[in-house]
């Protein structure tokens, strides 16, 4: 499963764009602060009003998640303006990975129904309650008429989107695909996470703040390299936890991704793990990484900077590595020590694991 990665875009609580993202990643400091939704907890949130991030009309009916998605695509297209030429966008596919992209809109719809009566609930709110509305709105804003798909698998959503995009490319269903990972922080998601944690947000062992961000990657079909490339998807794999448990699923996914990429564990210079939210899942992922790579391969966890970004995590993790490595040659001196060579990104969930091997 191979593809070229020829551009990226990102919006996150520290700003917008590859360079700002690289700096934040290398700095490694958490962007979490007192939540605007619930000041008593920490969260890595964007500004309340996201509309200034997108220089397009038609944002009034978009959900917060859809605006985040649009901002990431706009950032990507700013670097590669040819992407929005009529013939190119007419063939360009879009695959969105999101865990909870519609949840806040669904709650808003229900609240409106309760306030105004179900008979008079706003028809404008209804489309956003449907999960693929992020991808649909993004396609409308940017005129993307190729295959348009949404995948959802919790925290695995972002990497799953990368794999589905590669599948579309391999099948020849589009010459290029924008892969988007996106999730927002909302009252609904905070309350849900509260219930799942069964404990206080500030308990040290659970102190992983929720985060919101969106990352976009432009994937192009394997073969001769495109005019510009910032990275290359070398291989990927997904494994279910059914009958084998999460730890073994992660280990198998890591080994299968390496085999698909044709590289050994020793050749991997950096690991990006999805982290420890979810208690046993993070521990299972760490155990699997130890079994496959030993203890010496340097590793990072995006949660340290961006908090738990769920469906955005996999795409953002690839974007983070590529941003740092592609910015390193410029004035960005701290990145000079960032490892070179292929890296592996992992996303673990109760349902299993998804891994990808990428190089610059």
């Amino acid at each position: 499963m191979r593809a070229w990665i020829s551009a990226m875009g990102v919006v996150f609580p520290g700003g917008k764009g590859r360079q700002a993202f690289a700096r934040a990643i290398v700095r490694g400091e958490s962007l979490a602060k007192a939540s605007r939704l619930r000041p008593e907890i920490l969260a890595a949130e964007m500004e309340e009003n996201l509309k200034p991030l997108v220089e397009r009309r038609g944002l009034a009916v978009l959900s917060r998640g859809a605006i985040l998605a649009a901002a990431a695509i706009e950032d990507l297209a700013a670097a590669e303006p040819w992407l929005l030429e009529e013939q190119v966008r007419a063939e360009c596919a879009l695959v969105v990975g999101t865990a909870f992209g519609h949840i806040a809109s669904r709650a808003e719809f229900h609240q409106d129904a309760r306030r105004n009566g179900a008979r008079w609930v706003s028809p404008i709110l209804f489309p956003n309650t449907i999960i693929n509305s992020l991808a649909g709105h993004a396609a409308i804003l940017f005129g993307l008429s190729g295959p348009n798909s949404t995948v959802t698998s919790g925290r695995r959503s972002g990497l799953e989107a990368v794999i589905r995009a590669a599948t579309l490319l391999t099948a020849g269903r589009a010459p290029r695909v924008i892969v988007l990972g996106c999730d927002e922080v909302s009252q609904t998601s905070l309350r849900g996470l509260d219930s799942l944690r069964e404990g206080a947000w500030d308990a040290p062992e659970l102190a992983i703040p929720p985060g919101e961000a969106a990352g976009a990657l432009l994937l192009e079909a394997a073969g001769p390299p495109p005019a510009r490339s910032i990275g290359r998807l070398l291989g990927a794999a997904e494994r279910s936890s059914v009958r084998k448990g999460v730890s073994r699923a992660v280990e198998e996914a890591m080994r299968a991704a390496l085999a698909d990429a044709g590289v050994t564990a020793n050749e991997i210079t950096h690991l990006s793990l999805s982290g420890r939210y979810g208690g046993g899942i993070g521990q299972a992922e760490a155990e699997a990484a130890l079994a496959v790579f030993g203890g010496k391969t340097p590793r990072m966890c995006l949660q340290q900077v961006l908090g738990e970004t769920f469906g955005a995590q996999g795409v953002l993790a690839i974007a983070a590595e590529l941003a740092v490595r592609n910015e390193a040659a410029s004035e960005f001196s701290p990145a000079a020590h960032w490892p070179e060579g292929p890296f592996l990104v992992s996303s673990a969930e109760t349902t299993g694991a998804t891994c990808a091997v990428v190089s610059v």
Partner: protein
Amino acid sequence: MQSGPNRSVVITGLGCVTPLGNSVLEFWNALLGGRSGAGPVKSFDSSCYRTHVWCEVKDFTPHVQRTRGRAAQLAMAAGKEALLSAGIEPESEGLMLGVSIGTTMGEANFLDRLTDTSHDPVAAPWAEVLTHSAYSITSDVAEGLGIEGPQASLPAACSAGNYAVGLALDWIRQGQSDLVLAGGAEAFSESAFAGFNRLSAMSPDRCRPFDRDRQGLLLGEGAALMLLESEDHARRRGAQILARVLGYGLSCDAHHITGPHPEGNGAAACMRNALNDSHADAMDVGYLCCHGTGTQQNDRIEAMAIHKVFGEGARRLPVSSIKALTGHMMGAASAAEGIACVLALRDGVLPPTCNHENLDPECPLDVIPNQPRELRVRLILNNSYAFGGNNACVAFGAWPGVAQK
């Protein structure tokens, strides 16, 4: 495992739970017999809405624990039937079996409870809302049926079933799986009922696709799954092959979040893409199973798109919409329609468009009215369109010698 774009993919198992019946046999008999699944809403008080009719799954007893959502329960039952009919035991050693399920609203019954409890943040089922997102349908089915291969949840709204079948086809072609249980699942959702009511898309009584006097759609629920398998794998184990999956096509309108492109460009593009993927020509198509929701706009635009692809041949191409009987099962709709396509190929009989009295002159098509048409065809297209402009079309081909009649 073999792979390649020309790897032949066949269907060896079918399963469904629908408003017309809780097995493939009941579903098909009702379709051919013109028995509607519509009835008054009983699941909740519909008095505050403009319409009061929908298509409910009846007499359904879940095989699984109560904590699973209704969509997963429906999908589990359909999956069991499909695997049983194919003679597949999911836990067999070395079986590369995947599962790919589409949906529109996900596990809506948990989300719908927000309406009752949103005034009380403590009482609201927030954790269930998160843990019963759309992906839990697929993961519950995988866990419940012991499926260890690749999993995908494809929330592509009302095209989701076709998306799931298409991904399954690519998985098998690309050697990621030998067999995939693929289709769609949708549990009834009051949110959807409220939303479609406010969009004035619902019919107050019957669904009448392509009829001059059509008034809209009826919502439905259900699950439909089919077992896709590589032909070489099916032959090796001596499976009964029902039909081929020849190809599929996707496109996006990129025009409006709920309405189709006014010239049907996206709808036409996905049919053309499906034909290209199948290495087939429009002349090869013998029947078209329409999206045919029964709304004014959908049916008119779909007819326009069919004319764009088939030209003058559009007036002679037999088409129908089974939504007149099943209602619009949203995420499960195109998968159930896919099952109808497979059975039409197998039996040499095309299902009718019921409730059809006067053809809309803006839909100049050969709509099969009210009674099934006996006709053996070799290639069928199955259309589906969705919110977000998500269009998907799957091409099914006849399997020689499978005829049951």
